[in-house]
């Protein structure tokens, strides 16, 4: 199954829960807001972590496309 992530940067307020759940896919920009590190296809091995990143974001700023 293919998977990509979309971040709604305007909704992100820098909780960093995504980076805690999936540090390979989400990082932090200069002000501590989320930064997507893998903009293309997410490797299958990281799918579980990405789903957790989505389900831990208090701002619901992450959308998974598959």
């Amino acid at each position: 199954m293919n998977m990509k992530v979309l971040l709604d940067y305007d909704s992100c307020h820098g909780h960093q829960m995504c980076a805690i759940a999936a540090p390979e896919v989400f990082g932090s920009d200069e002000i501590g807001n989320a930064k997507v590190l893998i903009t293309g296809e997410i490797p299958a091995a990281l799918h579980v972590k990405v789903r957790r990143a989505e389900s831990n974001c208090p701002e619901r700023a992450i959308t998974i496309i598959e």
Partner: protein
Amino acid sequence: MTDTQKPVTDITTDYDIFAPDFIKNPYPGYTEIRESQCPIAHTERYEGSWLPTRYDDVVAIAQEYETFTSRQILVMPPAAGRSEGPYAAVGAPPITSDPPDHHWHRRLILPVFAPQAVAQYEPGTRDLCNALIDEFIDKGVADAASDYAQHIPVRVISKMLGVPLTMEDEFTDWVRGALENITDAERRIKSFRSIVEYFIGEVQSRAANPREDDFITQLMNTEVEGKKVPIEYVLGVCNLMLVAGIDTTWSAIGSCMWHMAQHPEHRKQLRENPDLWPTAVEELLRVYAPVTMARIVDHDIEFQGCPMKAGDRVLMAFPAANRDPRQFENPDEVILDRQNNRHVAFGSGIHRCAGSNLARLELRVALQTWLERIPEFELIDPSSVTWAGGQVHGPRKCMVKF
């Protein structure tokens, strides 16, 4: 009788966040309100306030910053006399700011608290935790709150600000006066003035003798649209660092120590599986979220059937939201590897706690260091644990033996 002495008759119409039972353990009260016909409770005490307890309501209010403003953010009305004096306008930006100023107030401090920026404080935090433990490890007993948790954030923040560690006792006393004993108006005002006066001195000494690489100096030199930021902003951020960075994190560390003292199975789980730390820290933050903030209603509005008036105070009970069964399965249970955890211990929306990454780091390092050196410990007498509550919830005396 004062507001704190009248017995509560109906918690949904007469709650008292400073009642002794509520300070000690607010969760049964939150549950009673949340599962009642009035999940947004109201009280006339302390000049009146609303108390939403469901996750969706708390988050919706946090998001609607134009309707629910941050003109005041304490759970009590300002003490009379607070608005007097030359620096009465000093707040605690950005938590006390509303847009449009909120944007630059916040933007200026966020880089200092980004995860990659706070990582530099980890070794120093570990050293100070070890130094605290050295003081009592041979005694076999310690107060996990006042010998340990209480000293960690104040020292981290002092170092960050570039002020002497010898100020620890004063800072602790001022912060408690500003946040914990807030039914004592005189102490509140005195604490606020002490904080502002202290930082006026620090600013003046830096103006006379500039320093390099010091947070207060950096703040003083910050420019917005070609002009240096006003002194009120510099003092306000210093105030914020104390009032938002000390009592809150120390309360969270203390609550987690109290939890760990009673849960050998969780200590074992973390020892055997250190990969659990990231989710464990978030879970402990969910269950023991220390902070309740307030908002002031901007204009008359009916919110979820509640007739809120302009000027009404709304208490953002993040600890109540974090235990809403509509959002979290088995909400009162600590599940260290909880997978779905959209907790709001740090709030939600534009006022999300700016220091959250530092707080997480301190909490994790404090627990890890203790558990490495004192893997087995227990409460000496559960009934002797004392708590602070209202604005910030956490233990103040918590004797353990090992």
